[in-house]
Structure formats: structure tokens, C-alpha cells
């Protein structure tokens, strides 16, 4: 599938979330004539209800308000356009491209429990395997049956999975996977890791060790350290991003479960407050329910255009 086609698939899948965001903003804008000041509060509330976060909402509303005042705009349609532009501009400089350099290029996938890491790993492997030789390392040696899960998915998409045993040291599993990737001359090695709470210093240290093991055995790697976040999570997303970033130096964010009713406002917060690139979006359990993040497409969807 081409990149354009992949992105297009997103539109239909996140309609559910998009329309709610749009309704809230439309409602606020309709009231502009009734209550000139109240509209800003209402816009702010609709952004907050979409999980955009208080600080980022305030920032967005303030900048729209300033521009509206400067240009003496009071037409709801115009304000709608300004807001949309400001929303897009939050993603200025966002780089959704995955940097896959090296032999193999190593992609380390992390995140808290239950965000959809394993499903994402399978989707990414499937997507990349159209053009590259891909190998998966099943390094979640903690959760019951996690290795079975990724192995079954690997079989379905025809990508080999280097298995470890439950209870193994994940870093050792990764070491083995790197050797296997070399032996099989794989171009990309995607590592599925155990879910870990960002509040657990020990588990973050374990992840940092994995990264060190990768760097030692495959110089210059990992090419990407992807943090997977669940779009239904609220403001905690930013805490997760901060904690994981300080241990692992995250290179990009993957947002999952966009087929839910979530409005994914946390994407704005993560981008605005952390300046991390949003790389990919996932929106369903189908293997091809994945796309590269394109701010314009995403925001057009949210605003319903």
C-alpha cells in the first residue's frame, strides 16, 4: 500500500471521533452572537473535553483570540478557520517519517500496559515487510502469553518472530534477536517489549538497559524508540511521555485505538508541550488499520472536512 493510500484509510475509521470534536466546536461557534465572551470559555471547554489539556487549550484559545481581535474577525466561520490553522500549526515540524538506517535498523517499541504495543508491532511489521526484510523480537518476557500472542500474529503476516521464554531477561532476548537479524540479514528488527508503568523506576531502568544492549551490539541503534500511547488516556499521556523520554530518549509517538470515541486531544498536548513527533496512528484491530501521521488529514477529520 502506498503512503497516500495508507493515510486515506484513516479518514473513514476515525469519523466517529472526528464528528464529536466538530460538534462541540460548532456548538460553541453558533453561540458567538449570543454571548461574545462566553464563546471563548465554551471553545476552551470543547477542547478540554476532547482531552487537549488545560494548558494547550488555553494556549490555542489565546492565540485564536488574539488573531481574531487583531484582524477584527467575529464571523464564526472565520474563527473556525483560524482555530483550525492554529491546530495544524501545533504540528509544524512534525516528522512522521521513520528513520530506518542500519543493518538491521532497530525499532524499540515501549509503553505502559494495555496500550496496544503488540498489535502495533504486528501492524508495523506487516507494513514495512512490503518493502523490507523484517524480523520481530518477542521481548515481552513478563506478561503471560505475550510471546504466544506476537508469534501467532507473526505467523499471520508472514514475518518471523524470534521467541524468548517467559521469565527470561528481556535484554538477553534482544541480544539473541540482534544476532538472528544479522544472520538472516534482516533490514529491520522490531522489538516488542513488556508494558511498564512509567511510575516504576525499576522497569524504566530495565528498558534503559535494553536500549544500552542494543547500542552495544548494533552500533548506532536503535534507529527509533517509539512510545505507544492509548488515545483514550487523558492527561496522563503527557506524564507517560515525559517519564519514558527521560529514560529512553523517545524518538516518536504512536497513538492507538483511534477507532474509539476518543478525540485524541492528547496528541496536541504531547506535541505542544514535549515537541515530540507523532509518527503513526492505529485505528482498529485489522492488520492494516495503521497510518503515518499527517496533521492536515488528521485535523481535517477532526473538523469534519
Amino acid at each position, binding site marked *: 500500500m502506498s503512503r497516500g493510500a495508507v493515510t486515506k484509510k484513516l479518514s473513514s475509521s476515525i469519523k466517529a471521533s472526528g464528528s464529536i470534536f466538530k460538534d462541540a466546536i460548532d456548538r460553541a461557534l453558533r453561540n458567538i452572537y449570543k454571548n461574545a465572551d462566553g464563546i471563548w470559555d465554551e471553545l476552551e471547554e470543547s477542547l478540554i473535553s476532547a482531552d487537549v489539556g488545560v494548558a494547550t487549550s488555553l494556549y490555542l484559545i489565546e492565540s485564536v483570540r488574539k488573531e481574531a481581535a487583531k484582524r477584527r474577525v467575529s464571523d464564526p466561520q472565520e474563527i473556525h478557520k483560524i482555530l483550525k490553522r492554529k491546530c495544524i500549526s501545533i504540528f509544524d515540524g512534525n516528522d512522521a517519517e521513520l528513520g530506518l538506517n542500519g543493518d538491521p535498523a532497530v525499532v524499540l517499541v515501549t509503553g505502559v500496559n494495555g496500550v496496544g504495543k503488540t498489535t502495533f508491532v504486528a501492524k508495523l511489521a506487516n507494513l514495512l515487510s512490503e518493502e523490507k526484510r523484517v524480523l520481530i523480537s518477542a521481548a515481552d518476557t513478563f506478561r503471560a502469553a505475550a510471546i504466544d500472542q506476537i*508469534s501467532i500474529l507473526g505467523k499471520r503476516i508472514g514475518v518471523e518472530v524470534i521467541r524468548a521464554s517467559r521469565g527470561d531477561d528481556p535484554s538477553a532476548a534482544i541480544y539473541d534477536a540482534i544476532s538472528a537479524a544479522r544472520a538472516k540479514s534482516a533490514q529491520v528488527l522490531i522489538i516488542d517489549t513488556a508494558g511498564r508503568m512509567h511510575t516504576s523506576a525499576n522497569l524504566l531502568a530495565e528498558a534503559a538497559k535494553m536500549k544500552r544492549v542494543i547500542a552495544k551490539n548494533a552500533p548506532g541503534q536503535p534507529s527509533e524508540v517509539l512510545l505507544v500511547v492509548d488515545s483514550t488516556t487523558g492527561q496522563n499521556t503527557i506524564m507517560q511521555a515525559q517519564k519514558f523520554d527521560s529514560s529512553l530518549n523517545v524518538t516518536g509517538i504512536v497513538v492507538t485505538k483511534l477507532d474509539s470515541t476518543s478525540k485524541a486531544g492528547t496528541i496536541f498536548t504531547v506535541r505542544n508541550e514535549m515537541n515530540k513527533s507523532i509518527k503513526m496512528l492505529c485505528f482498529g484491530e485489522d492488520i492494516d488499520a495503521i497510518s503515518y501521521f499527517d496533521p492536515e488529514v488528521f485535523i481535517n477529520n477532526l473538523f469534519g472536512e
Partner: protein
Amino acid sequence: MFETITQRFQKIARLLKSKGIVTSVDIDEVLRDIRRTLLEADVSLAAIKQLSANVKEKALGAKVISSLTPGQQVLKIIKDEVELLLGGTPLDKNLLENVSLVFVMGLQGSGKTTFCGKLALYLQKANRTSLLVPLDVHRPAAAEQLKTVSTEAGAEFLSNTAGKSVLKICEEASVAAKKIGIDTVIYDTAGRLQIDDVMMKELSDARMKVRPDLSLLVLDSMTGQQAAQIASGFTRSVKVDAVVLTKLDSDTRGGAALSVFTETGKTILFSTSSEKLDQLDLFYPDRIASRIIGIGDVMTLIEKAEEIASTKEMEEMGKRVLKNEITLEDFLVQLNELKKMGPLNSVLEMLPGKGGLPKIDLRVDDVMLQRCEAIIRSMTQKERRNPSIINSSRKQRIATGSGTQVNDINRLLKQFASLKLILSRVSKQKRGFLKKGLLGL
């Protein structure tokens, strides 16, 4: 959980208590603060509006204005309203004693399977046997995961379900449960979105077949503004009796906990944290409300301590604690015991902090615990019993002996001193606090 929100509420409490008279302007100001605090904590707008309206109405009532301590009155009103948001009356604990068929439902990744294991272990402690039934026929290896979990929980597991339909598995489960004589059958359903009609139909069909007497919705405590939609979506399609809140070991500010009841009228039955199967707690709105407002949750703390501290050694130590004669040796035992009670942070959250307790940094992780142990073990007995004799040359020796820095030793001694202070307060308050409650503090 609730740490940030508690800090903010404590600030509000301090402000309120400093006032001789509370005017409606003060109330408005406080409500603005609360609104912002709750918004940042992912609490739904409806819940916030309800709280604000109620607090305002009650706070402007005559009773507050004529009171000698209006600030505390307002604080009490806020606490009551927070308690109401959390569900008000807790669910009857005995509910679980007669439950024989439990349905566990929720979104993908909310923690259903782990919760099933925790529930089985919880029931086992009450001498009830359980059978875990894998109804997740969609996610690869879901049944294997449940199987491992059930082994760890010491529960029965319904095997040979591969390739069978959900309804067929339900049938086999009831046959098996009768055959081996099981008290509670726990059905672990597949994760699904509340807007996925096909999957919701599968769930309601299975429900019709099984007719469970307890249907639990598992909700990730980090869920944002969607919590309400998710809960009401499930409520619309299938009957939900109560909610289980998972992953409380995250640093979530608890928006989901504070929104679910207002939006759906469903009470939270359990809260869970960590991947360890014994981390399951009954949910008491009044206790959590006290914790959020910052007046502590001494009840849960005492219960937890009683559950763990049953050994002779702990009893002895308890006596020393009450007399404020705790030593560093006790401290070491205490640190290890506290680990069993869950993360120390969650234990400390239960302590009353309103009286201006010293700010202490008692974050315990395994590494730190090891270091503390090494330090204490490098001390002489005399030093352990009377740390005040530890001067700089002793510190140097201890540091060398334990492979740490003098800094580490200073930190440990400081923490020990503040722990002693807290414990002395708790022991003083134990009687008074429990009797007089909130306003007695």
C-alpha cells in the same frame, strides 16, 4: 494516584482555614481553583458542574456563615461532594459472598484478564473456589494468558476452548462448574469498544446465555474525558452492576474515578494496582475522598497493617511505635513490611497530611531499599538503637562499610527522623482521630 490533586486541595484547604469569614467571593474563588484542578485531572465537565453547584449552594447556607470555623465547614462540604462524585455509599462487601457468576467486561487493554486473576485470588482468600473461563476468542493467545494467570491465582481454568464459539464455551463452563463443584465462575470477555455493535451484540448474547449475577466493567484509571462515554456505552448495551478501576499505580489524577458515578450512576467496587495478583482493594468513596482532600485514610492503613503485621515481632514493634521508641532496626523491618503493603507512596497517601506534616521524600524502590539495608547493616547495634550518636567519623565508616556515600547516610537518618515524627503523630491521633473524625483534626 491522586497525589497532584491532593496537593492542590491542601492548598485550597489552607486558604479556607485561614479565613475568619467566608464570603461568596471567597467561595467563587475556591470553586474556580477546584474547577481548574479537576479539569486538569480529566474529571468530566458534568461532574465538575455538579460539584460546583452543590458546594456553592451548601456553602452559602446559614450554617456556614454563622459557624465559628467557616473554612472547615466549607472544607467538609467539599469533602462530602467529592465523596458523592466517587459514588457516595460504598457497595456492600457481602455482595461477593453469594456471587456465583461474574462477567468481566471492558475496552482492550483495560486490564480485564489480570483483574480476573486478582478476583480469583481474592475469593480464594475468602475460601471460595473459582473457575476462570476464557471468552476472548479474538485476541491471539488470550486464553493462554488467562490460563497462566489462573495457575498463579490457584484457580481452575476451562481448557480446550480453542476454535469454539463464545456461546459454546459458556455452555461448557456451566457444565464444568457443576461437575467440579465451583463457587464462582469468572468469565473473561474480549476487549471491545462500546461503539462496536457487532462485538457488543456478542457480549449481550453471552450475557443472556449465562445470566451472570455480577457484571463488572473494567476501566483504566488513566482514561481521559472518554471514561463517561465508555461506561455509559456499556451500560446501554449490557447491564453493568459495578465498575473496577485498574492501574492505580500510575500517577493518574483520578478523573475517571471522579466522573463515572455522575455519568452512569455505577459505583466502583474494586480498585487495583500493579501486575501482582494480590493488589486488589475494595473501593470506599469516603476514604478516597478523605485522601483526595488530604485528611488521610487511616482506616485503610490500619486494616492493611493488621493484615500484614500479625507476627510477634511486628506486635512488639507496634508497641515501641506507640511509645515512640522505634529504632533503625525496626525501620528496616518496617521498610520491608511496607513493601508488602504496596508502594510506600500509596501507603503515605493514606496518612493524614493536613496538620502540616514535614514534607518527606520516602520514595522506596528496590534499589533504595537495598541501600538502606546495607547502611543499617553496616551500623553497630548501639548505633541502630540510638542513631543520635552517629557522628561524622561514624558516618564515614558506615559509608565505607556499605559502599555508599555519606550523603546517603544523612538522607536515611533524616527520613528516619521524619518517620518517627509521623508515627508519633499517628499514635497520638489514633484514638482522637477515629472518634472525632474530620473536624477533630
